[in-house]
């Protein structure tokens, strides 16, 4: 649980900057109905119930995943900091570990779950190393589906679905590797992927541009859809915004949890013999863009995309299968009286 000075996640534009009390004054005007007030109601509700956000980090060991998570949420949320006697060892198989925290800011509570994937891409033979991840994601969908279809379902179904998957690309400077392409292809269908260039302080600005261009080219060539997906842009405004973001993907990020003094200010940064890399300086790296995308502007959108698109796709597939195979799910659907596809 931590508070800090950054802005809250929502950007609900209020026509009146003052609080809800002011609306009562407008009852006098004829054209005002009060639909606007629903936003406040939502806000209050949301503050009470809090948010859930599940983020998964995937990448080879040593790319700075845990550090980046810590930097992103400005607290020690990663697996590294949480398990006592943590030893850096390369796992033999990929297995997933999730750590949950509740962080609070200005009265808004968020249950953040970070799912880590140690062992991914570290072996000599990395065939099918993405399978445990695919399985996990589908399991979460399955859990949600079951809960949704049960007779006595809870009011608020605990949402453990993966809302966002951050994929770390090693800063080779050349192009996407076969393992990257394989993973992105398979997981682009079931979850929203945000690729980032890890440890971007390896690359100079020109190298970064080139690398980014090459990656974008490769992504297009392999028809990999990363978040924000073009097909789900709802209107022109969205499209413009998302296009801007799409130009910048993948973001070149640097993570750190140390602070140094620069020009009298305390900044988060990495100190090397030839200079200090400021994490929150836009000229140095794109961490701020990444954070804004993930938390400040598109958090809710990520959740919506996951719920409306990825989850629905899964649901349709699953229910189709169960109809064909006559599995137990069909019995559930009869009792709910719903007409299942």
């Amino acid at each position, binding site marked *: 649980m931590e508070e800090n000075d950054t802005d809250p996640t929502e950007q609900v534009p209020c026509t009146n900057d003052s609080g809800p009390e002011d609306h009562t004054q407008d009852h006098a005007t004829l054209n005002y109905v009060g639909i606007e007030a629903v936003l406040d109601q939502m806000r209050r509700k949301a503050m009470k119930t809090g948010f859930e956000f599940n983020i998964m980090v995937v990448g080879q060991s*040593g*790319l700075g995943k845990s550090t980046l998570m810590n930097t992103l949420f400005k607290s020690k949320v990663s697996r590294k900091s949480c398990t006592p006697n943590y030893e850096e060892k*390369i796992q033999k198989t990929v297995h997933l570990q999730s750590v949950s925290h509740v962080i609070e800011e200005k009265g808004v509570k968020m249950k953040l779950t970070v799912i880590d994937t140690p062992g991914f891409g570290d072996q*000599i033979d990395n065939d099918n190393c993405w399978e445990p991840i695919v399985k996990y994601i589908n399991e979460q969908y399955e859990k949600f589906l079951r809960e949704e279809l049960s007779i006595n379902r809870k009011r608020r179904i605990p949402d453990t679905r993966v809302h966002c998957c951050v994929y770390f690309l090693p800063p080779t400077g*050349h192009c996407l590797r076969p393992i990257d392409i394989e993973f992105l292809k398979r997981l682009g269908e079931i979850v929203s992927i945000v690729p980032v260039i890890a440890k971007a*302080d390896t690359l100079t600005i020109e190298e970064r541009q080139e690398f980014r261009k090459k990656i974008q080219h490769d992504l297009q060539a392999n028809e990999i859809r990363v978040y924000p997906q073009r097909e789900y842009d709802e209107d022109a405004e969205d499209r413009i915004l998302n296009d801007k973001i799409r130009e910048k993907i993948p973001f070149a990020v640097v993570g750190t949890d140390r602070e140094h003094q620069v020009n009298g200010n305390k900044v988060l940064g990495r100190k090397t013999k*030839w200079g200090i890399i400021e994490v929150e300086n836009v000229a140095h790296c794109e961490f701020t863009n990444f954070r804004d995308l993930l938390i400040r502007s598109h958090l809710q959108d990520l959740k919506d995309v996951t719920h409306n698109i990825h989850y629905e796709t899964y649901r349709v597939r699953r229910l189709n299968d169960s109809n064909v195979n006559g599995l137990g799910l069909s019995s559930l659907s009869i009792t709910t009286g719903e007409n299942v596809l």
Partner: protein
Amino acid sequence: MTDQMMSHCPLTPHLGLDVAASLLLAVAQQKNLEGYVGFADLPNQVYRKSVKRGFEFTLMVVGESGLGKSTLINSLFLTDLYSSEYPGPSHRIKQTVQVEQSKVLIKEGGVQLLLTIVDTPGFGDAVDNSNCWQPVIDHIDSKFEDYLNAESRVNRRQMPDSRVHSCLYFIAPSGHGLKPLDIEFMKRLHEKVNIIPLIAKADTLTPEECQQFKKQIMREIQEHKIKIYEFPEVHDEEESKLAKKIKDRLPLAVVGSNTSVEVNGKRVRGRQYPWGIAEVENGEHCDFTILRDMLIRTHMQDLKDVTNNVHYENYRSRKLAAVTYNGVENDKNKSQLTKLDTVEGISPLAQMEEERREHVAKMKKMEMEMEQVFEMKVKEKIQKLKDSEAELQRRHEQMKKNLEAQHKELEEKRRQLEEDKANWETQRQLEQQKLDATRTLEKNKKKGKIF
């Protein structure tokens, strides 16, 4: 020295023989020269000869793509071996690991260096990297094999040395430790080539991270008993301090750059970041200068020697041992004479015996064959001679017969002649008698007349 000798020889001074004997024995010890002989110039002679001949050096670079191998090679040798037109790894992703050689002849100060860089594109890039080290091992073995064959030839005047003298292995700067691929590769190649592990793209790491990373790597290398290239012991005090400094900084963290930037009015090779410039040749920024000095300025010859004396000999004994018949009793010959503890099976001495035996057997067989041929020829000759002898005999007899026939004829004729002679004699006698008779008559007649 004389004190030692004095202690050995008896105190009686007139036994000068003892001293003389020990003096002779001590010839192998160091003697101080009384004048300038001139063999101090020997290194110069070697130097001049080598400079004329030129040097060869083969360097192999191994590592995943994108770790800056080509850039480092360019920085090391200050040439654009991998120019910007050279197809980068993005164009070179293939299914299997390739091994590519590029040669370049560099001249500096009158000394020629034929530098061969062996590159391994595709190493560690695929999804399944099992056996990606196999093409590398095959390449190294094939170079050893070529050298072995060249050495065994009859005419070996030009023997090019294309063996791989050193392998630079690039470790990705994860900051955690070695990857399973790194460990596997090094385990398989440390007996075949001098491995020098390097931390690539070291400007990713802060100095503390770098220290920790190095410690971790060295710990893992020792844990897995990987034999990386060891710097040789030097006797010089100052040099040994330097060598120790290098040892502490293993594995070397390097940064390479193709571009030069301006720093304090000087143009140096470096990488320009928004927050500063990482200089390649600055000892505080990275260990590039140490690597360059070690690889080129001080230890190049040692690398070649170790390759020749250790790795090549290992390969050679293993190869030759595998070729011979395995039934040889080799236990008694596993002797103190062989220093190679990595040889499995027969020691070279037994092998030589075996070879000799084989040779002798072959010789014997050849001898026997030749003898047989000889005998056959002799028989033929004898037969021929016999035939001609018989022929001669026949002729001889025939001639004898002829002679006898002629002899008989002559006898006949002689007899005839004798007969005729006898006849004539008798006739003559008759005639004579007749004549005598007539004569006496006549005489009587005459006598009678007177009367």
